[in-house]
C-alpha cells in the first residue's frame, strides 16, 4: 500500500480480555516500530524489528505485551489480560533505509485502545 496501515482504528475491550493490533508497513521497508501514546503524552517506545535480527523488546512494559513480525512484513502487537492503564493509542511506524527519505519514520494513523 501507499502508507502504513493499522487495524483496528478503534478497539474497546473489557478488562482482562486479550487484544491484537495489526500493522502493515510500507512495502520494502525493512524496519518496523511500535510506540504507545497516552492522552496528551509523548511517544513511548515499545519494540523495534530490523530485518532478520532479533527484535529490540526493551520497551515492552510487561510480559503481557508481545509482538511478532511475520515474513518481514506484517506485525501484530498482542496485549494479554488487558488493564485500564493499557488504554492508549498504539502507533506503528516503518522506516526507509535508503534514498532521499532514509531514516524517516512513516507512521500509521494508530489504533486507539480503550479498556473498560
Amino acid at each position: 500500500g501507499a502508507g502504513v496501515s493499522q487495524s483496528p482504528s478503534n478497539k474497546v475491550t473489557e478488562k482482562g480480555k486479550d487484544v491484537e493490533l495489526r500493522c502493515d508497513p510500507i512495502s520494502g521497508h525493512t524496519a518496523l516500530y511500535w510506540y504507545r501514546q497516552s492522552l496528551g503524552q509523548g511517544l513511548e517506545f515499545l519494540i523495534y524489528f530490523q530485518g532478520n535480527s532479533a527484535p529490540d523488546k526493551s520497551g515492552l512494559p510487561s510480559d503481557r505485551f508481545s509482538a511478532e513480525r511475520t515474513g518481514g512484513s506484517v506485525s501484530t502487537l498482542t496485549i494479554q489480560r488487558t488493564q485500564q492503564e493499557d488504554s492508549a493509542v498504539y502507533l506503528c511506524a516503518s522506516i526507509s533505509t535508503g534514498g532521499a527519505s532514509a531514516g524517516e519514520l512513516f507512521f500509521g494513523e494508530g489504533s486507539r485502545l480503550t479498556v473498560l
Partner: protein
Amino acid sequence: AQSVAQPEDQVNVAEGNPLTVKCTYSVSGNPYLFWYVQYPNRGLQFLLKYITGDNLVKGSYGFEAEFNKSQTSFHLKKPSALVSDSALYFCAVRDWAGKSTFGDGTTLTVKP
C-alpha cells in the same frame, strides 16, 4: 542510552512572529536528528532531518532547524508563524542501530 529533551510543554506565539521549539539530545556517536508534527486527530508526519552536512536544515511548511553539536541541540524554527502551524511537535534522535527515541512533545499554539 540515548535521550531527547523538549524543555517546554507549551509554546505560544502570535501569528506572523518567529517561533522556536527547543530540543536537546544525548546519543553515542553521530546523531541522526528528526522533527515530526502531529496535527489534532492525525498521525505523525515527518518535518525535517539532520544526518550530515549543513547545520541548518530546511523542511516542510517553511520550517527549519539548526544543529548545534557543542550544545547538543536541534531547535526547530520558523520565521513567521501561521495559525495552521498549531500542533504537537516531537523531536527524535536515532542511534546507529536504528532505534528512534522521541521527546515528550511540545504543543505549539499560534494565535491570530
